[in-house]
């Protein structure tokens, strides 16, 4: 411990820490635009500058380590003036578009301009002209609003290990772009949306599907239904100022009905179905010498990643469709048949914490006879926008019960929202399939938490099952490289594209707020803890679905509806 002085107050800090880390801990807010916690600082934006006694210039607090006895002034007139000038200079080459911007009211640049009291245009420069890149089904890039903070580039490269984008050109011509500055759709981008999550401005956003969904809702010939992913109900409340991690399942269902959706399905139910198929597939592979380790297939960013970077592992991927797509498939087959609805008139919407799900829904193989399993995907943010647009005050709305057209989910399905959750759910069922008995304690502590790579060996009968749950594709890369290098003790690997899993997905509220992510995680664990049924195979509605329609896991019907295949993709990577 060393002592430093901040704004005339004595403060303790650890040697080697950056000034910014100490300030944060002490509750002193210094603005940042390029800082990403846990990654190496770049010092690109200079917004975090502070005065340090004895050092001539202002120093960037994010990249300047503390020293014993250091005296810091965080909000001296000089520091504040410098910050304001930086913002003014950024605005000189920025469109005055706030009223039309997706980040209006939720933009770091806008907030800082307000906080620093920018009231007039002191610098007016020549503005560059740019084309908006709308080529991707998931991500829209608007370089005019980019302030070149570089966060998206670092996220894509250092955290996700994709490197689809980088700085190109030089000086005032610098932009963020793909190789040959081509559309994102033909790049190696895997649509995860983590770049959106860190972007401080409206330069990156999801491809919105609100209009299509609204049009469908206003079309009397359409039977519009909606499903919601496990992590959405524990996140949506934040968009309305509710407590982080509050489960708003009941009010969300009510709001969806008010928006005009005819049926509200819970994707956690089809997650149970995924577990039945996936655990059976795992057991089959183990007992019949199939390709191992098996790898989960519910995260579409990860799937595209394998197709591009590790095509030799395509056979390791489970053939199971993701819960979104399984739900989509049974809505337009079993449910439509049972209700006597022509599947062509069903418009099936999915609310997801994810931008890659938009890409997944467009995959041609995920359709039956030319009818897509899913018609439109909305992110959590888009659902919130729709609710606000309709003037629904969810804070004062009565919760309503789910109409669960298929019956209820188990809490195993709900765990899909957090890294390790798919694995935990799968283990519960695989254990039963192999031994015929239930696990004594269904909670697998080693698979819980936000760590990037979690590993455990479980004894199931005579089998020592080696499993890994990893999130963030940079981590997935490490795991896959271990397998490539010959590691043999692992049977099953869960991969979630976004660090921490869907609770931190690229379609969740802007910014990566770790407190919020942890609260969402805790909420999912609590739902599981308090649930009566915590295993997919004991879900009686799932059993009924098999009895009435699918026969049994891996049956021909299941294969036809619930499974798929992937193939190598050639992109410049």
């Amino acid at each position, binding site marked *: 411990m060393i002592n430093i002085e901040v704004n005339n107050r004595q403060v303790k800090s650890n040697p080697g820490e950056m000034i910014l880390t100490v300030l944060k801990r002490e509750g002193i807010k210094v603005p940042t635009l390029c800082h990403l916690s846990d990654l190496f600082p770049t010092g690109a934006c200079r917004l975090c500058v502070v005065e340090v006694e004895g050092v001539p210039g202002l120093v960037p607090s994010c990249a300047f380590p503390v020293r014993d006895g250091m005296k810091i002034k965080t909000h001296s007139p000089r520091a504040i003036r410098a910050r304001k000038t930086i913002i003014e200079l950024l605005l000189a080459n920025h469109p005055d578009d706030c009223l039309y911007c997706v980040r209006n009211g939720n933009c770091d640049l806008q907030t800082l301009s307000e906080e620093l009291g920018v009231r007039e245009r002191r610098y007016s420069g020549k503005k560059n002209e740019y084309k908006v890149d709308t080529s991707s089904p998931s991500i829209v890039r608007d370089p005019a609003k980019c302030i070149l903070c570089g966060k998206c580039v670092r996220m894509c*490269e250092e955290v996700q290990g994709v*490197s689809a*984008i980088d700085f190109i050109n*030089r000086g005032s011509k610098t932009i963020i772009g*793909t*190789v*040959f500055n081509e559309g994102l759709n033909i790049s190696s981008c895997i649509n995860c949306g983590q770049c959106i999550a860190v972007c401080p401005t409206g330069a990156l956003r999801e491809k919105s599907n609100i209009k299509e969904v609204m049009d469908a809702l206003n079309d009397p010939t359409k039977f519009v239904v909606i499903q919601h992913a496990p992590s959405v109900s524990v996140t949506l409340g934040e968009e309305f100022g509710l407590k982080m991690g509050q489960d708003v399942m009941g009010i969300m269902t009510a709001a969806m009905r008010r928006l005009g959706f005819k049926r509200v399905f819970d994707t956690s139910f089809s997650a149970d179905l995924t577990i039945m198929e996936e655990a059976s597939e795992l057991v089959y592979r183990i007992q019949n010498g199939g390709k191992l380790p098996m790898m989960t297939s519910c995260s579409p960013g990860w799937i595209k990643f394998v197709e591009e970077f590790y095509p030799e592992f395509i056979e390791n991927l489970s053939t199971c469709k993701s819960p979104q797509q399984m739900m989509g498939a049974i809505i337009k087959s079993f449910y439509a048949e049972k209700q006597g609805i022509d599947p062509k008139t069903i418009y099936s919407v999915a609310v997801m914490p994810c931008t890659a799900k938009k890409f997944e829904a467009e995959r041609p193989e995920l359709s039956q006879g030319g009818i897509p399993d899913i018609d439109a995907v909305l992110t959590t943010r888009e659902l919130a926008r729709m609710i606000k647009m309709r003037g629904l005050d969810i804070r004062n709305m009565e919760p309503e019960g789910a109409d669960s057209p298929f019956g209820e989910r188990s809490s195993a399905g709900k765990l899909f929202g957090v890294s390790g959750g798919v694995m935990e759910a799968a283990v519960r069922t695989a254990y039963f399939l192999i031994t015929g008995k239930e696990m004594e304690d269904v909670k697998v502590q080693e698979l819980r938490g936000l760590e990037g790579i979690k590993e455990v060996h479980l004894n199931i009968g005579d089998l020592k099952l080696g499993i890994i749950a990893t999130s963030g594709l940079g981590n997935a890369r490490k795991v896959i490289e271990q397998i490539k290098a010959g590691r043999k003790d692992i049977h099953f690997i869960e991969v979630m594209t976004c660090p921490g899993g869907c609770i931190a997905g690229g379609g969740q509220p802007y910014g990566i707020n770790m407190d919020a992510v942890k609260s969402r995680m805790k909420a999912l664990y609590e739902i599981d803890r308090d649930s009566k049924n915590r295993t997919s195979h004991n879900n009686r509605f799932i059993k009924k679905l098999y009895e009435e329609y699918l026969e049994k896991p891996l049956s021909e019907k299941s294969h036809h509806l619930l499974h798929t295949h992937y193939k190598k993709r050639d992109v*410049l990577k």
Partner: protein
Amino acid sequence: MSTVVETILSNHPQAKRDSLIPILQEVQEMEGFISREAIASIGKHLNLPTSKIYGVATFYNQFRFQNVGKYHVMVCRGTACHVKGSAKVLEAVKRELKIEPGTTSRDGLFSLEIVACMGACGLAPVISINGEFHAGVEPDKIKGILNAYRRKESENVK
């Protein structure tokens, strides 16, 4: 993979990212430009993402990503030419050819490059087309100069 690039890469065994620029220079020297295939091969060889290679290459003016045209126009933007108004000359060339520096017209006839100094300061402002120098060019003469090459081309075709 083009064999030229393969050969160049084989001359850089176990190269790391600091060899990127020399490799790019050699590839451009031999092939005239940096192709998609070249970027893909270099990326594999150096274990670098292609976006990074493109990013580095576009940082420098010297690299081009399209083959040069049949007539390669170089506009000097050195100090002497600048003083004599080469900025306007460049604008005129861009307008006339409808291309940006570093690119090639769609018909493959013309390509454009900015150079720092051609060592012909006495002729400022100067442009060179396939090595032929045009001295003391004025913006409104550009059209005529380029048309001469266009005429030559259409006569060749006949």
